[in-house]
């Protein structure tokens, strides 16, 4: 424990892969194991203006995916599926040697399709918010 704390004080530690592995593991453990999510909004947009941001609902969506309710997950936020895939893939990339499985899920084509999907869904949510919250709010 002391060694870990000593390492954490060095800037190089925060540039390495270990905080990333720790962070992703904690997020996945939280959404997979929690019986209920914390009822506190984390998004500054919701806190300051009651308007959700395009990624609001991803935590609830990931929680629903891990608890088997995929339809509700889609309704919370479609980006939840992408987030689960990206988190799991990143965890595998960081912890396993490069093998066929990782080659199949982490290549230029997959990244291109995921990137397009992400930005299409992101802007879909963005304009949905503008139509349904922002214009009404004004």
């Amino acid at each position, binding site marked *: 424990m002391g060694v870990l704390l000593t390492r954490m004080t060095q*800037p190089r530690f925060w540039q390495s892969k270990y905080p990333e592995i720790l962070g992703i593991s904690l997020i996945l453990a939280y959404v997979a194991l929690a019986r209920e999510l914390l009822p506190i909004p984390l998004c500054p947009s919701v806190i300051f203006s009651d308007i959700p941001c395009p*990624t609001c609902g991803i935590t609830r969506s990931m929680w629903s995916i891990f608890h088997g309710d995929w339809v509700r997950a889609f309704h919370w936020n479609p980006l939840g599926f992408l987030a689960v895939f990206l988190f799991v893939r990143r965890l595998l990339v960081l912890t396993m040697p490069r093998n066929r499985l990782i080659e199949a899920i982490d290549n230029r084509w997959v*990244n291109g399709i995921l*990137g397009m999907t992400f930005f299409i869904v992101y802007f879909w949510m*963005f304009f949905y918010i503008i139509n349904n919250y922002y214009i009404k709010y004004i």
Partner: protein
Amino acid sequence: MPEWYVMIANQQIGPVDHAKIVEFIRLKQVVPQTLVWKHGMNEWIAVGNVDVFQSYFAGTAQPTPPNQAPPHTSGHRAKQKLAGTRFCRNCAEAIDERAVVCLSCGADPVKSNNYCQECGSETHPKAIICVHCGCKLATGPGILDQIAQGGDYIDAPNPPRDPLLMALLSGCCIFWLGQILMGQTTKGIVMLLVTILSIPVGLGIVLWPIAAIDAYLIGKKLKEGKPVKQWEFF
């Protein structure tokens, strides 16, 4: 006694002693055409023409006649360039095209002017176009110089973060989080505060997609090994 100066890859090395030059000959770093000089000589001469070294070249190429220019100054020695590689402009060794330092000579691969980076042919020091392949010769300060002069480049994480994941995190609850995790800490924190403060007046909403796109493009740059400044956008 170290008294000899040797010209290897257009770089003057020395003073070195007799035994060191013999060692260079044994390692084939010095060939009969390599130029050497010591105090008392009027000009540089090919080592193959120096009496004390001639015996070490037994069985190798014949020394160049004094009235003929050494072959390596005559120019063309085009090489086969592999995909994703280029030649070091200092020593003509094949290196990764993204390399900032040549692993063979340790020099900045674009800072020197001895060889063409595309075909490996020797070039005139003042040339801007390679006369053998016609490409524009890479010049100017290398990335290391830019980093030394510019100063404000970030210390990128290793291994580089996933650009898409960073885009997701930047467009997520803590805006600009991706930039903070990639090393643009000052920019990330300042932009996060700007975004949060501008949400109530309606401007923050414009910054959400900008944060996501910016994180994705900065992440891609870092993944390609390019240097990124602290306040660089897109």
